[in-house]
């Protein structure tokens, strides 16, 4: 394991992978916000630990399976399925939390990993926008061709969460874009703006 500060000094330890991982988690709070980068070698990637990518896939599958079971249970049993729903939500949350602590490269970061994260986040956002927009259009089309008011009202209720999500996402994106634009292109020092 290598702990690095801004002067790039390093401390090599002779501890086992598990001890090093524990040390790293112990040290995390101390170093938060201090501009200190923490890097664990993939030498630590052994045993029953897993990588961050696998964690995201497993977590998404857990959420998807839980959602399908909850949807099925509520559809079949109605309000009496609430204890099952609550249990499933708690179990899923605990499972995801436990798995989170087993990621061996959770704190590994450098500029390439940051770049990969940026690209993945941007693509996710673009595809999510497209999916939400497509869902909104599909729902609006169904509302327009619905042959009675009851169906039209139900379709409207179905469409509203997509519309709201889309609007919220756009708003959050705009806020962060303004924030980062100001952070990186502040005009106060622009000599040619006069």
């Amino acid at each position: 394991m290598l702990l690095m500060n801004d002067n790039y000094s390093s401390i090599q330890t002779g501890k086992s992978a598990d001890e090093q991982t524990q040390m790293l988690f112990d040290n995390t709070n101390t170093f938060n916000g201090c501009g200190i980068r923490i890097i664990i070698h993939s030498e630590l990637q052994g045993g029953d630990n897993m990588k961050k990518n696998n964690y995201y896939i497993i977590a998404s599958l857990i959420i998807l399976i839980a959602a399908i079971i909850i949807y099925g249970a509520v559809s079949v049993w109605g309000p009496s399925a609430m204890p099952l729903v609550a249990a499933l939500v708690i179990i899923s949350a605990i499972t995801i939390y436990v798995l989170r602590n087993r990621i061996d490269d959770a704190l590994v970061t450098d500029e390439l990993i940051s770049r990969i994260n940026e690209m993945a986040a941007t693509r996710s956002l673009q595809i999510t926008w497209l999916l939400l927009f497509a869902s909104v259009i599909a729902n609006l089309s169904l509302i327009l061709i619905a042959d009675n008011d009851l169906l039209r009202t139900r379709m409207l209720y179905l469409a509203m969460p997509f519309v709201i999500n889309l609007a919220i996402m756009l708003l959050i994106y705009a806020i962060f874009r303004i924030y980062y634009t100001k952070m990186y292109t502040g005009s106060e020092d622009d000599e040619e703006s006069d």
Partner: protein
Amino acid sequence: MKNQIKVFRAKFDLTQWDLADDVGVTRQTIIAIEKNKYAPSLELAFRIARRFDAKIEDIFQYDG
């Protein structure tokens, strides 16, 4: 962007691990730079050049 990191590593007898440790990145990043799949930031490029006591242009060449 082409680079001579592999040559300099051989000259200094450094492994990818060693260089990654010294400049404060993961080995994955060094591999990506050596394979020209990732262009490092200016800061990292300077750190690598400093590690090899070389000028940045001796290690990195722009071939655009």
